[in-house]
Structures are given as C-alpha cells and as structure tokens.
C-alpha cells in the first residue's frame, strides 16, 4: 500500500516536471527573442535588461530551466506584460468565479449523469435507454459556446428567467450567485454529463449481468437497493475514472464558458491575454490547470484503493 502511494506520487511529480519542460521549451522554440515574448512590445530598455538578466540567456539551457522552475515552485509565475502585476496575484483574484463554476458544474453533472446512466442500464433496450444514449451522442456534438448562446437566447432573452451573463460573488447572496451560474453550468456540463452517463450505463450493464445480482433479485431485494447498493458500488471504478478524465474536458470548457457568459474567472483571464499577447499569463494558467488535472487524477487513483481493495497491492 505504501509502495503504491509512493510510486503514484512520484509519477505525478515526473509528469508535472515534463509539463514544465514542455512549457519552458515552447517559448524557446517560438520565433523571435524569448525576452520580447515575455516583456511585450512596449517594454522599456530597463525592463528588457532586467528580464534578460533574470533569464540568464547566456547560461546553458539546463541552468536556465532550473532557475525558471525553482521560481515556479515557490509560486512566482512571472509578471503580466499588460498590467505589470504578478501573474500569481492576477490568477488569485480570478479564483472564486472559476471555482464556483467548476463546483456547480461537477455536482450538477455527476448527479444527473449517474442517475441517467443507472436508469438507462436498468431499462436497457427500451425507449428510455435509447433517448439517454441518443441525447449523449448529440451533446458530444454541440460545442459549448453554441449551447451557451441557445440557453441565453431561450432562458435569459426570451423567457427572462435567468440573467444573461456576468457573475455575482457568493458574499453578495447565495441565490443571485446561483442564478448566475445555472446556465453556464448546464452549457459547460453537457458533454461531461454525456461522457459520465455513457460509462455509468456500460459499467452498470456489466455488473448487472453478474450472478450475485440475480441472487439478490431472487431473494427478494427490491429493485432500488439492488441498483444502488449492490450494483453501483461495484461499477464505481470506471465511473470515478471517467469523472477524472472528464476534468480535462471541463478545463477546456471553462475557458469558453467564461467567455460566453462573461464570467471574470481564470478562463476569461487567458482569453484577454490572447488579445493583449500577454504570454506570461497564458503560461501561468497552463501550469495551474495542468497541475489541477494531474492532482485530480492522483486523488482519483487513490480513491480506487478505497473502492476496490484488489488494487491495494
């Protein structure tokens, strides 16, 4: 068990190190002077000189990488070209909207998807099953921003049930906070729901074919406990896996959703950085999101050991 933990955590560090190398090399491969990329076109000679010194471009590339990586490790992600503020601080200011959006989406999506998947597996082959599966193929095909605009048009512009866009901090009241997150969460969560629902259905179908499920039915256990207690628990590993894999889907989607709904989060920070060619911000957010992805997947691997004792070797 301990060996497994150590191995798993070590491989997480290796993956993060490789991510850092890729991001570091990207700037060096790009055409033009890396200093110009990192300080922008309007920098003063002093600034350019300062960054050039900081990067130490005359040193061997390993030394340069090590210097950069050790600053990243202590949370120094560089200075934004546009606003001249530390990137880490800018990200910190945008944390709440993004975390709120991610949390509501994940909760909403997992509840809806697992329920739909269980029902589809239970009613396999019927029209309910076909509708769930058909909807899931469809929601893979519609891009987040198209769903977003359709939702805004119907529920905000035509019906006026919900706000068109924007974000309300949770400190200003829970209800308004939630009302601003309903449509973005649905738009962002749709593909995620489709993914989880499909896997839940498949995993449940496999488990429901087992002998002990028939035994449970035979000895008179009601349908609901059979589905939720006997079957779902054993179908857990693939479901939890796909929830983790889907985090990548969500991270990409956050950038788009925040743009559609004008939510001032980390995704919006990146999109604004595209327009101002603010590379330090893009680089910082990539590091952060990759880190989140790797850590979530580490945590999920660790929950396997709770769900399935056989993995604990």
């Amino acid at each position, binding site marked *: 068990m301990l060996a497994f933990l150590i191995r798993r955590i070590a491989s997480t560090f290796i*993956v993060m190190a490789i*991510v850092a190398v890729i991001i570091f090399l990207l700037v060096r491969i790009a*055409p033009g002077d890396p200093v110009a990329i990192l300080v922008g076109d309007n920098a003063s000679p002093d600034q350019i000189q300062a960054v050039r010194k900081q990067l130490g471009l005359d040193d061997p590339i390993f030394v340069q990488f090590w210097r950069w990586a050790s600053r990243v490790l202590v949370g120094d992600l560089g200075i934004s070209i546009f606003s001249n503020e530390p990137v880490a601080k800018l990200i910190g200011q945008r944390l709440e909207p993004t975390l709120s959006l991610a949390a509501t989406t994940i909760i909403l999506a997992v509840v809806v998807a697992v329920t739909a998947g269980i029902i589809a597996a239970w009613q396999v082959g019927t029209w309910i099953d076909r509708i769930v599966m058909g909807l899931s193929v469809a929601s893979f*095909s*519609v891009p987040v921003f198209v769903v977003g605009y359709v939702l805004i*048009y119907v529920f905000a512009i035509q019906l006026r049930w919900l706000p068109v866009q924007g974000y309300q901090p949770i400190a200003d009241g829970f209800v308004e906070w939630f009302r601003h997150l309903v449509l973005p969460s649905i738009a962002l969560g749709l593909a995620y729901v489709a993914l989880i629902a499909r896997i839940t259905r*498949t995993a449940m179908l496999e488990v429901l074919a087992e002998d002990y499920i028939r035994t449970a039915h035979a000895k008179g256990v009601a349908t609901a406990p059979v589905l939720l207690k006997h079957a779902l628990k054993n179908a857990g590993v693939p479901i939890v896996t796909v929830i983790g894999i889907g985090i*990548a889907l969500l991270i990409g989607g956050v950038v788009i959703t925040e743009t559609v709904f004008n939510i001032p989060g980390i995704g919006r920070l990146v999109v604004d950085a595209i327009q101002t060619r603010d590379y330090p911000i893009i680089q910082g957010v*990539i590091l952060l999101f990759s880190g989140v992805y790797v850590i979530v997947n580490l945590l999920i691997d660790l929950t396997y050991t709770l769900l399935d004792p056989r993995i604990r070797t």
Partner: protein
Amino acid sequence: MSVEATPAPAVTKATPQNGLWRFARRNVTLVIGMTILGIMLLVAILAPFIAGDALTMKPVQRLKPPSDAFWFGTDQLGRDVFARTLWGARISLLVGLSVATFSVIIGLIIGLLAGTVRWVEAVVMRFMDGLMAIPSILLAIAMVSLFGASVMIVIIAIVIPEVPRVVRLVRAVVMATREQPYVEAAIAGGAKRWKVLVRHILPPTIPPLIVQATYICASAILVEAALSFLGAGTPPEIPTWGNMIASDRIYLGRAPWCIFYPGIALAIVVLAVNLVGDGLRDRLDPRIARRM
C-alpha cells in the same frame, strides 16, 4: 434433390441495389453519418459556385432577418450568412481531416516504435503523459499566440495534443499482439525485424486507428471552432463558424440567426462524424464498442 430450373425468386436476387440496401439497414448510423458528411463535403468543395459572395460588406443590409434573398439573413456588416456558413464548412472539414490524418500517422509511427523498442518506450511514454496533462485548448492557445495565427498553425496546434492518445492506443495494441504465438513463431523462424513489424504487428492496429481517426476529426472540428471563437485561431477575415459566432455574438438578442446557423452547421457536421465513428466502431472493433 430436384433439378428444376425455376428462376430464383425475385426477393433473394442479389442485385447490387439489394446488397447496398442490406448494408444500409445493418449500418444505419454509418450510412446516415456518411450521407450527411458527403453532402457537407460537396457543399464545401462547391462553395465558390453555389454559395455566392461571403465577403462583400453591404452596410445598408446589416442584420436583416432570413428572407428569399438572404436565406440565413445577414450579419452586422451586411454579409450573407448563408454564403458564409457554406464557406465555413471548408475550414472546418479541412482542419478536421488534416488533424485526423496527421495525428494518426505521427501517432502510429511513435506508437510502433514505443511498442517495439524498449528504451524508446520509457522516454516517449513519459513525454506523452506530460503532453496529455496539458489541456489541449490551452496548449493550442499558447502555440497560436507564440507562432502567430494561421490555418497551418491551428492544425499543428490541434495535432500535438491528439498524438499522445493515438500513441497510447497503438502501443496497447502492439503490446497485445507481440505476445501472440504467431508473432513469436515468425521471430523464431528468423523473419526480419521490419518484416514482422509490417506484416504482423501493424495490421491489427489499423481498425481501431480508423475509428480513433473519426473521433479525432470530430474533436478537431470542435477545437478549431472554439479557437476561432476565442480569437486564437483562424484569422478573423476568413469565414469560419467560430469566427462568425464570435463576431456577431453581441447581436444575439437582435439577430440570433447570425449565431444559430453556423452553430447548427457545426453541430450537424460533428454529429455526422461521430455517427460515422460509432458505425465504424461497431463494424470494425467490437472491443472498443464495449468501452463506451
């Protein structure tokens, strides 16, 4: 035992049409997807002849609703949304097909190497893990902002994050194949290394790769549209579905057609590609079918 020379009943007569019909009935999703995709490809190729002018701005006619003259209405600069939607199909399909082709070829080569040469495996697979950890949209944004926006850069930026997925798939198939008795027999029999690779190890990777290629195509079309939408993709003067939605999104309340038509076109194409993928998967690779 009779030797009657009665002609076979008409129903079982194996005309080519019957064969086609039977194929269609057994592969409904595949045929529906292929048909939609075929029509879209035709439309994309013929866009210069049937769509008309997608670029001229006529400020007098800005934001006009759909009519006989403008089937899909006009956008904020008075351009024909119908013409722009048809032209947009070109970029989407070009990007989708190129990304699918390039990522499969590159992934296949790296995957074969990683599956057969031990030291390559260790290095390459770690690198692939790292690449997979970077959200593909963000990697593409970084590349476009570093290397400049063009269709070529967009294609490369989408290919790079897709490659690790192909490599993993190829490697998994190769590792399963190389333990097979017939491969061991071929090696024991003194077959040359590259011959074993080409004749025995390569063929089983092809069916799952074809399926994977369709899914890559679908996701590439979505990512291209997203990049254009975010302003990190194809330059704004080229009509793409993402660019169209991005430029007119502030007019959603007044002129929803500017956003809905390219959006619907995008959804239909991606759905068609996904249907082709599902259809091929059911036909070619029953093992993957169980996974989804």
